[in-house]
């Protein structure tokens, strides 16, 4: 362990290409234990790809990804082992439709981690209670709303007791009134000290939850820093332009008679 042991995740010179197109260019950063890092940037900038390569869903071209000081990018450690430490939640929830809420959650702990069903179930119930869905444990995903499905998906990842959680635009396909319930769960996780890497387009949430914000554009981290500074006064022109997309001028006060 040559790395600073307070860093759970250390990424060095990460390169990823899709065919001719370079998606991530020489990306390097660290995430400390308990830190919440929010990654923002325009669509196609590579932020989802970044998350996906941390649990092996994308093939890495070069560079290293150290999880707890161990390089997982070399392929020496089987990805199923790595993925037990890395919880991931997707945009489209992706619960298993043929299984109940409880069966969805127990898949990892029982089938993969070989834990005792009773013990895993007790933990799952505790987590479901925390996200307010204990009464839905025997429901099928089709009987749940989008927000409920996403909260179950979060519990499914949490029940593996991961060291870091990855959130890939988890509210992007939710109705606006359901976004809040999912964010509340994530804020609660942050409060409990979970290490999280979050990709989102919700700037207000990013500001509230982040310890650090990364602005990625065209495969490089253009700017990073504490959210207060970043959102109040972004240094780079590209970040300024990007943040302006989320601002609306008040039309009413400027209306003039035509």
């Amino acid at each position, binding site marked *: 362990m040559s790395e600073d042991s307070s860093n759970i995740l250390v990424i060095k010179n990460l390169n990823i290409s899709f065919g001719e197109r370079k998606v991530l260019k020489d990306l390097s950063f660290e995430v400390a234990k308990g830190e919440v890092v929010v990654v923002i940037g325009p669509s196609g900038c590579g932020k989802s790809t970044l998350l996906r390569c941390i649990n092996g869903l994308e093939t890495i071209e070069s560079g290293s990804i150290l999880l707890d000081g161990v390089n997982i990018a070399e392929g020496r450690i089987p990805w*199923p082992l790595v*993925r037990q430490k890395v919880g991931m939640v997707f945009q489209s929830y992706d619960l*298993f*439709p*043929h299984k109940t809420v409880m069966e969805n959650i127990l898949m*990892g702990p029982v089938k993969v*981690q070989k834990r005792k069903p009773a013990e895993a179930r007790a933990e799952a119930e505790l987590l479901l209670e925390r996200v307010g869905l204990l009464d839905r444990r025997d429901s099928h995903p089709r009987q749940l709303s989008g927000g409920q499905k996403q909260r179950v998906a979060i519990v499914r*990842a949490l029940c593996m007791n991961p060291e870091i959680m990855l959130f890939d635009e988890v509210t992007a396909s939710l109705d606006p009134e359901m976004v809040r319930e999912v964010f509340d769960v994530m804020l609660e996780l942050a409060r409990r000290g979970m290490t999280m890497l979050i990709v989102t387009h919700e700037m207000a949430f990013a500001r509230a939850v982040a310890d650090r914000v990364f602005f990625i554009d065209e495969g490089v981290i253009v700017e990073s820093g504490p959210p207060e500074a970043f959102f109040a006064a972004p240094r780079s022109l590209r970040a300024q332009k990007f943040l302006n997309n989320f601002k609306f001028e008040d039309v009413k006060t400027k209306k003039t008679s035509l």
Partner: protein
Amino acid sequence: MLASAVKVFSNGQNFLRLLEGLWMTLKLSAAAVSLSLFFGFIVGLLMLSSRKTVRTSTRFYLETIRIVPVLTFLFLFYYLLSRTFKINLESVTVVLLTFTLWGTAEIADLVRGAFTSIPRHQKESGLAVGLTDLQVQLHIIAPQAARRLAPGVVNLVTRMIKTTSLVFFIGIPELVTVSQQVVEVAAYQHNRPAAFWIYGLVFLFYFIVCWPISKISKSLEKRCLY
């Protein structure tokens, strides 16, 4: 009118012969369907292979079977093999060969379709909870594919039962063949038109066999919605 029906059916064990014809139809169908299911699953999984040569050759097989009418294969194996290559196959063997080739291709394509219709995200979220590739296929993809597969397979079964009537052309005494014989005997020997009653009964037989299967398909389709 009804009296003529009774005459037609009671004449020379006609009704019994028709029942035997039906029995032959059911036996042929059951054998062809079981063989097709068995080989269809194997070929279907081959169609999902990551090797291009395997995919192309199974695709070629499927398209060949689809383009050429079943009857052509029936004649091909029955006449061409015996005349040209001096291979004499029993007519029942020819039927099973033809229908299994056809059924295997259709079921294989259904299996391929069912598996590829499962969204890519299902695989990814399975992997994300730490399942191995094999576990993902076994616990996540296969159960969902099976549900999507069921209605199509049941539909194909009814189609295969009905299509066995083609074996009439190579003289196997199944339902349609027997009914044709009965109608002809009635017309030429007894000068009695029997077509209406006999084919009416054939209609009823096929209906009794296929309708419940088709019903099962409908209810499966409903249950597969989730």
